[in-house]
């Protein structure tokens, strides 16, 4: 039940511990961590800068989280997304969900990252050897998010 947009890195272990520590009804804790991938193929640094829409981004993440909680019996959930300049290998996003049983935790975690990627206002600007380049939205991401609409 928490959403954070921040420049700083996060400690995955500490975040997961804090999420489940006080609720012993939780039997499963699922998480997804997104990392900056080196797209230069070893040709040089390929850092990226993540831009967001302060206000709307937090609001959208909270809406997506609320939707997950309507669909699955979740005991706890967390979305942390970074902004600013990030180097290859750095963490971008953490999505974590906790439930009594694994199925709800695993499914809702996948749902959250799929919806986040196609709805939350973030934009990636990559530094490539040829210069800066705005990352284009991918059809596969739209298809992944749309899978969750069928049962809605």
């Amino acid at each position: 039940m928490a959403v954070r947009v921040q420049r700083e890195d996060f400690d995955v272990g500490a975040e997961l511990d804090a999420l489940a520590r006080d609720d012993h009804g939780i039997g499963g804790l699922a998480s997804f961590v997104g990392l900056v991938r080196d797209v230069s193929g070893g040709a040089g640094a390929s850092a990226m800068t993540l831009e967001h829409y302060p206000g709307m981004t937090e609001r959208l993440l909270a809406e997506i989280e609320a939707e997950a909680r309507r669909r699955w019996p979740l005991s706890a959930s967390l979305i942390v997304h970074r902004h600013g300049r990030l180097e290859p290998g750095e963490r971008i996003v953490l999505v974590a969900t906790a439930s009594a049983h694994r199925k709800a935790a695993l499914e809702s975690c996948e749902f959250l990252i799929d919806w986040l990627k196609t709805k939350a206002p973030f934009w990636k600007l990559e530094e490539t050897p040829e210069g800066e380049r705005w990352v284009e939205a991918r059809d596969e991401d739209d298809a992944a998010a749309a899978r969750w609409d069928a049962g809605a």
Partner: protein
Amino acid sequence: MKLLYFAWLRTRIGISEEVVEPPAHVATVADLVAWLATRGPNFATALENPSVVRVAVNQEYAKPGQRVAPGDEVALFPPVTGG
């Protein structure tokens, strides 16, 4: 009306935000985008393909037919690429 531009819309238009008073015939999101495109070559280039422009009115996604009003905060941006 406050306008915000993000990502390549911001870099192509050349500003991140501005306050505008659209003409009276601008009633909807689609009207607004069409009017903005007439405001100079940078706007025309950035908005040449409205199908790749996402619009949010008061921080909620809006469809082309949604009405816009003078006090609104309207954001224009490309499809999102976070995560």
